[in-house]
């Protein structure tokens, strides 16, 4: 039997009908020749042929494939049953859509972080090399000279390429006359970058090897497809055109293909420049190629055919040992990690914690949804017990009945999956809007084929979880019902037991989800009201970088000296200052030694957080000064170098138990070893992680120690964003080409960046908890109502024999409460074990916070009590007369 015949049954039937018709005509003709009348001839022919329909049916049957036929029959049957119960169908599909939608959305995050390959050909063969400070660190960038040595000494690699993130001011006027200067984010790359990654430019060419040999010699650039489209209007003749980067002329030689968005998942560069041009693009950029202590480069490569990762690792171990001997001041004890790019991503446990937590939560939500659907299906199946028994009695096989149930589950799962993918797609769009990253930064969430496969697998698993159990229990119950010829007792039947197990696990799961949600919600609320150590309201942050325009450090200083007094004079401005870093946005740590202090490990230098700030910074931030003074305009490059430290710094490294006063005048030193005198002590303030304990912190005067990029802090009387346009105008008046990199308010930064992770976890986990709670309540309500329905007769008899309303109420309620209490107990025990696993993400709240545990237990118990009280109340209204005549 061929498939084409099966699908063309209609056609073949028509063919046969025509053939039989032609037979009739031929026979009729013959009969007429034999002397019959027209009608007799026709009738005789028909008689001779027999029943035409029977013949056609026989042939039609031959063209059937029984599996497909029965499938079709089951589908039509399912369609009819589902249409008959629109409410049931809607609840089931909605539950599944919620579960699968949440899973799809969260998996898209996991996919972006852990599964999506880098967009280059044969991404699986891409090897990453890290040079870490120790075996434990596992991650670390390399210096350019390390890279050069790796290339010279290793034999395992077909090619090694190096790159480093860079930003620059771009003036595209040479290529597009009316375009404005703007900031571009890009990569400094070695000459073999594109050839090593196997990426072919779609316009022009990649870099030539000789373009990356001599510092400053070849000002060439390759641009991204996105930049080509956005700024250069997809100009096909872009090659050879000139643009300015940080004030220096560069020639565009090629455009990267659209698919290539850079070698990192978190960063999508718009421009690629040879490493040898670093001095033209960033201030002091020449040093990054010559200093072994400058570790800013990432290394990627491909192995030679036949070489394994382990062999390459062994070779790199030898090279690192040699380098440690040759350059002890920079390379002592450093180790190399050779991994595939994918393995490197997955080795980062800290980055896995958040997606892991969310994934765990959504899987629990899906399980809840499945349990809910399963118990709904069982209730429906039990109400169809008689129908199923009849089907079994007249000879339907048990397999056929189970198949029918599974078809129903599969149809529901397919619809739920479709709904879930739509919902998940909407969530992914919402995520993208919520994530505080630019178009260049941060992972890209997409509904790609891996995410769809995951959604399909989740749905398939759901069919088995929620479909198989009701199918088996229903058929088993029906089977025993016929065999024992008595109605199965409502509480003993197999499916009744299964439903109670299901409802217990639902309550348990929702307890776990609610407790998790509660803990994260509490952490989030706490994070909002945490004292940051400075006043975040009415603070405008304008980040500028005159070096993007090619300014030297001295020119930048003059620029700021011109600009700041103008801003301070604006109406509605209380004070103005500057800093190199802003809490929650950026930060840095430098090696520093404190005279008279040696760390327990004997090390003189400590790696401590620092910021380089301007005169009046602490007054503007409203960070209280505890002792001494803060920086002033007189702390210039020519004056003696001074520092301000926070209280933790002073107490931990200088005064230990004494008074803070003795820290004033103490000397600290950077690697350069010149003395820096502490002139002030300020109160601790946050470093950028809300709720984290205070860290030792030292501040240096920005005129004495800072790069040109600064953030201007403007403390305003009223709404800080209202004053932003005026600030921009003043900025443009000083130099129209120095555009602000960003204009933000401090409260916006805290809400967007500082509170982002606590908020997203709190919102998602609380939402999952609420979904779980409502599913559990619906489930419990269903089970108890069903129980009441089945025991109507019994309740009627009890009432007829004189049972009090209260006794009946208690009896029914006890059933529901027992289930809820069991589930709650299991859930709380589970949560006690599980929540410490995510303790690292719970800032400021204990993972076993008693307040949350108790309130969730109370709330859940109250909800389940209500869910069983409503049907229990109905049971007391049973009229004994009606009940006794029931059945």
């Amino acid at each position, binding site marked *: *039997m*061929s498939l084409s*015949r099966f699908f063309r049954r209609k056609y*073949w039937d028509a*063919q*046969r009908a*025509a*053939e*039989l018709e*032609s*037979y009739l*005509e*031929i*026979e009729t*003709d013959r009969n007429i020749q034999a002397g019959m009348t027209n009608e007799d001839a026709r009738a005789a022919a028909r008689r*001779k*042929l*027999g*029943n035409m329909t*029977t*013949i056609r049916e*026989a*042939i039609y049957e*031959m063209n*059937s494939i*029984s599996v497909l*036929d*029965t499938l079709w029959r089951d589908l039509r049957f399912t369609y009819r049953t589902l249409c008959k119960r629109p409410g049931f169908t809607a609840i089931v599909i909605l539950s599944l859509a919620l579960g699968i939608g949440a899973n799809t959305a969260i998996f898209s995050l996991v996919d972006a972080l852990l599964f999506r390959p880098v967009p280059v050909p044969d991404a699986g063969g891409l090897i990453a090399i890290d040079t870490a400070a120790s075996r434990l660190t596992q991650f670390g960038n390399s210096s350019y000279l390390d890279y050069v040595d790796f290339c010279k000494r290793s034999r395992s690699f077909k090619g090694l390429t190096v790159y480093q993130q860079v930003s620059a001011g771009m003036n595209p006027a040479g290529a597009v006359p009316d375009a404005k200067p703007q900031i571009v984010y890009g990569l400094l790359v070695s000459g073999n970058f594109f050839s090593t990654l196997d990426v072919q430019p779609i316009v022009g060419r990649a870099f030539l090897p000789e373009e990356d040999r001599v510092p400053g010699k070849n000002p060439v650039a390759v641009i991204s497809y996105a930049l080509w489209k956005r700024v250069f209007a997809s100009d096909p003749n872009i090659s050879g055109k000139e643009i300015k980067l940080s004030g220096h002329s560069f020639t565009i030689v090629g455009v990267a293909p659209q698919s290539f968005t850079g070698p990192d998942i978190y960063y999508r560069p718009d421009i690629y420049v040879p490493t040898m041009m670093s001095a033209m693009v960033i201030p002091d950029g020449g040093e990054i190629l010559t200093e072994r202590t400058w570790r800013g480069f990432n290394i990627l490569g491909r192995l030679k055919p036949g070489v394994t990762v382990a062999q390459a690792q062994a070779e790199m171990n030898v090279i690192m040992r040699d380098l440690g001997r040759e350059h002890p001041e920079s390379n002592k004890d450093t180790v190399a990690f050779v991994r595939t790019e994918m393995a490197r991503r997955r080795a980062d446990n800290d980055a896995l914690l958040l997606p892991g937590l969310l994934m765990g939560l959504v899987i629990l939500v899906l399980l809840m949804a499945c349990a809910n659907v399963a118990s709904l299906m069982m209730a429906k199946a039990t109400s169809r017990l008689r129908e199923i028994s009849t089907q079994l009695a007249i000879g*339907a*096989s048990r397999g*056929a009945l189970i198949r029918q149930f599974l078809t129903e589950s599969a149809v529901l799962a397919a619809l739920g999956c479709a709904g879930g993918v739509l919902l998940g797609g909407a969530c992914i769009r919402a995520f993208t809007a919520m994530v505080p990253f630019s178009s260049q930064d941060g992972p890209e969430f997409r509904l790609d084929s891996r995410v769809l496969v995951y959604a399909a697998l989740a749905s398939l698993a759901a069919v088995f979880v929620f479909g198989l159990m009701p199918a088996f229990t229903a058929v088993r119950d029906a089977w025993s019902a016929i065999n024992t010829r008595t109605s199965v007792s409502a509480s003993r039947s197999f499916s009744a037991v299964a439903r109670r197990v299901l409802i217990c696990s639902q309550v348990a799961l929702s307890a776990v989800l609610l407790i998790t949600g509660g803990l994260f919600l509490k952490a989030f609320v706490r994070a909002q009201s945490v004292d940051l150590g400075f006043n975040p309201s009415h603070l405008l942050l304008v980040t500028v970088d005159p070096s993007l325009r090619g300014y030297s450090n001295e020119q930048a200083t003059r620029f700021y000296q011109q600009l700041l007094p103008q801003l301070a004079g604006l109406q509605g401005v209380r004070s103005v200052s500057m800093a190199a870093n802003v809490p929650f946005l950026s930060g840095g740590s430098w090696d520093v030694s404190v005279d008279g202090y040696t760390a327990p490990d004997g090390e003189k230098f400590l790696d401590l957080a620092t910021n380089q700030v301007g005169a009046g910074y602490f007054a503007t931030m409203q960070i209280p000064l505890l002792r001494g003074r803060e920086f002033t305009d007189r702390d210039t490059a020519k004056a003696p170098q001074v520092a301000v430290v926070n209280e933790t710094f002073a107490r931990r490294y200088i005064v230990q138990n004494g008074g803070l006063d003795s820290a004033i005048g103490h000397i600290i030193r950077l690697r350069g070893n010149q003395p820096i005198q502490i002139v002030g002590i300020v109160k601790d303030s946050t470093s950028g992680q809300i709720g984290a304990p205070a860290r030792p912190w030292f501040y240096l005067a920005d005129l004495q120690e800072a790069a040109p990029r600064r953030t201007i802090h403007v403390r305003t009387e009223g709404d800080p964003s209202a004053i932003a346009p005026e600030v921009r105008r003043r900025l443009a008046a000083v130099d129209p080409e120095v555009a602000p990199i960003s204009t933000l308010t401090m409260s916006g930064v805290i809400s967007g960046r500082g509170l982002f992770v606590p908020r997203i976890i709190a919102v998602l986990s609380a939402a999952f908890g609420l979904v779980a709670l409502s599913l559990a309540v619906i489930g419990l309500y269903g089970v108890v109502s069903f129980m009441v329905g089945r025991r109507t007769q019994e309740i009627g008899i009890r009432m007829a024999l004189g049972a009090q309303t209260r006794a009946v109420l208690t009896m029914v309620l006890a059933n529901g409460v027992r289930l809820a209490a069991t589930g709650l107990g299991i859930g709380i025990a589970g949560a006690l074990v599980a929540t410490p696993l995510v303790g690292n993400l719970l800032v400021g709240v204990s993972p076993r916070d008693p307040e949350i545990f108790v309130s969730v237990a109370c709330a859940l118990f109250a909800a389940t009590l209500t869910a069983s009280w409503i049907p229990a109340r109905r049971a007391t209204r049973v009229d004994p007369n009606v009940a006794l005549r029931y059945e």
Partner: protein
Amino acid sequence: MGKAGKLPLEGEMVQGTLDLLVLKTLAAGPAHGHTIAFAIERRSDDVLQVEHGSLYPALHRLEDRGWIASFWGTSENNRKARYYRLTAAGRKQLVAQTSRWEDLVRAIGRILYPAAE
């Protein structure tokens, strides 16, 4: 549920016989359903009456197996009719089935007339 499975033995014998007769008839040249039935009845001196309820399904089955092929043509008295012809596979099948039939007849004969041995 569709009833899948083997037909009873006697049905199979009759069916197989009809297949053989159709193949043999078509060996002489293409013919349409009416002619095939007519020819079988005539050649057997009307001993074998062709059940049309079986003939057309049989034709369908043989075509499905690739032993015969069909096309629309015009009958002797200018009616549109579906003609069948023997394929190469059908010709082989005819030889095989004929010898099987002869074996069967000999075997039955040995049982019915043991004295002839």
